[in-house]
């Protein structure tokens, strides 16, 4: 928004949308962080707080949607303004989903901590969460600065997250095979890991939206890749 509009309240509207997105982003980052922390430290109080906090994000998304629709109706935006507004709608949707995934992790804290779990179960999950959070932060920083220099890093990091997830998948399977009493906790942890991996995907989506807002072009299509956990089978594991 380097240039100004003749109607100054139009600028104020666009600025308001951007600041709402930033606030939602902050909330989403905090929720994911606290959900994983609650999981690792078995902090049920913190988990409950995360679950309640999700309402803030839902409210934020509704607000952004309404505001965006009013701006479109009143100002008939064109070009980068229109992209800005549509981008805000999309990003708020992604952030709301990130919040849901964080909430889902927090909900599982009760089930995971029901039985005492060794710390090694959480180490990989913590590392995975750190990668996803770094990615989310970088993407939201990119949104704040409107520069596309670092967009490529976001995709590289997504590859790292997928590799880490696949590794974690195998590790958790091993624990389940070692001792069937681990199955409850490990299954929940598996879902938690999947949720974190999905958060990474949403961050990538946001990166693509930011790229579109800034350049007006779609981000160049990605080479085909995915996490390889769908190929992990019991037979491979037994061979190891």
């Amino acid at each position, binding site marked *: 928004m380097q240039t100004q509009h003749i109607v100054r309240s139009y600028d104020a509207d666009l600025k308001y949308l951007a600041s709402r997105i930033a606030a939602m982003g902050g909330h989403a*980052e*905090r929720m994911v962080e606290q959900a994983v922390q609650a999981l690792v430290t078995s902090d049920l109080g913190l988990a409950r707080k995360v679950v309640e906090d999700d309402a803030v994000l839902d409210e934020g998304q509704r607000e952004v949607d309404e505001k965006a629709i009013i701006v479109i109706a009143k100002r008939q935006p064109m070009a980068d303004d229109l992209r800005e507004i549509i981008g805000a709608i999309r990003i708020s949707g992604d952030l709301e989903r990130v919040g849901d995934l964080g909430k889902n992790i927090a909900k599982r804290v009760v089930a995971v901590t029901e039985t005492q779990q060794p710390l090694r179960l959480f180490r990989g999950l913590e590392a995975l969460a750190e990668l996803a959070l*770094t990615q989310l932060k970088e993407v939201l920083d990119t949104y*704040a600065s409107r520069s596309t220099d670092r967009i490529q890093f976001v995709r590289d990091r997504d590859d790292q997250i997928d590799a880490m997830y696949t590794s974690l998948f195998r590790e958790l399977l091993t624990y389940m095979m070692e001792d069937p009493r681990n199955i409850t906790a490990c299954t929940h942890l598996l879902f938690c890991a999947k949720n974190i991996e999905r958060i990474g995907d949403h961050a990538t989506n946001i990166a693509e939206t930011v790229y579109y807002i800034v350049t007006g072009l779609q981000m160049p299509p990605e080479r085909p890749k995915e996490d390889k956990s769908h190929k992990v089978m019991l037979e491979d594991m037994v061979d190891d």
Partner: protein
Amino acid sequence: MDIHGAGEGVRQRLLSARWVLAAAVAGIALVAIEAGADYRIAVGASLAVIAVAAFAPRRSLRERRAEREAEANRPAMGSITAEALAAAVSDPLVIFDRQAAVIHVNSVCAVAFPGLSIGTSLPLRFRAPEMQELIAKALTHGQPISIDYSEKVPVERFFRVNVSPVGDGGDLFAMIFRDQSEIRRIDRMRADFIANASHELRTPLASVAGFIETLRGPAKNDPAAREQFLQIMQAQTARMARLIDDLLSLSRLEMKPYLNPAERVDLKPLIEGVIDALNPLAEDSGVRIDANLGADPLVVGGSRDELIQVFENLLENACKYGRSGGLVEISVIHPGQQNGIDVSVRDHGPGIPEEHIPRLTERFYRVDVETSRGQKGTGLGLAIVKHILTRHKARLTVSSRSGEGATFTVHFPPPNS
């Protein structure tokens, strides 16, 4: 100068001249009595002397002029710019306006929060709910407020953040970040150290305790068994000592993960030194170390001791786990100032299965626990390497294929990035 101040000055002057004045008055009284003059003349003369003492200037003209000049030359607050003042503040400082857009950042802040440039909207950069609230409150109330703020990624940092309005107009605000990370980290380090150490030390400790029991009981009178057990016990205690060394150096590194050392180091002699030191180990493992470092000096910014630790760990790992390959190569790939410097360590051993690669730098993560223990590994070597490289803004990449050995590449950024 107000009247009270003037009175104070006169009193001071009279006080400092009290003995001279007393002598003068006594002299006048004596002369008046001797001469038999009217007592009123004597009183008038005394008052005149006191009045002169109270008001006549006592310093020379030159002295007074020098003083006035010094007064004029003393630097006044108005002579420095706001930028200079901000630059002198040793904590990150941001000046922002009513729209919460950045007006100025000092140089410390530019290092601590890269990406904060003039015009950036603060709530977009600091998205944490408490920061949003802080900025909103400061803008509406115009009162100084402080909060605690933490960032988790890329490195964990804790700040005490203070916002206060600047000047009377209320249009500009100053935000100062006081770094509290180190204090928090010392606490964390203590807790982590106890958790890790107790977990990892338990195994060797249990084995030592078991042997002591055997030595005092069943093997009491068996010299051959005693010798063998003592040997095992020595190996176990040596392992515990190594573990503690590694934990301590890791904890030291974690204290200051974001301070990048500024010394200039030539990697070439450094790596050659490390190879010399490791040659005995390599010979024991039946491995040859081949160095291909090129002819040019390889200068990077960093700390010599820490970089030695990096290459020691990488080469030691290559010798231990790649021993079946018989050859370890260390080479420089892009000796170009623009692209930075890549140093890679390659072994020809069994390689590392793909699923383990992303997690190698986690503490106590081992691909194969038994092999690692057999090779006197503590599970912390690569965690230390990663921490040191993060401090140097360098990256470690690992590539490997089963059966074809592994390559550990250290990428140093170009000097001025």
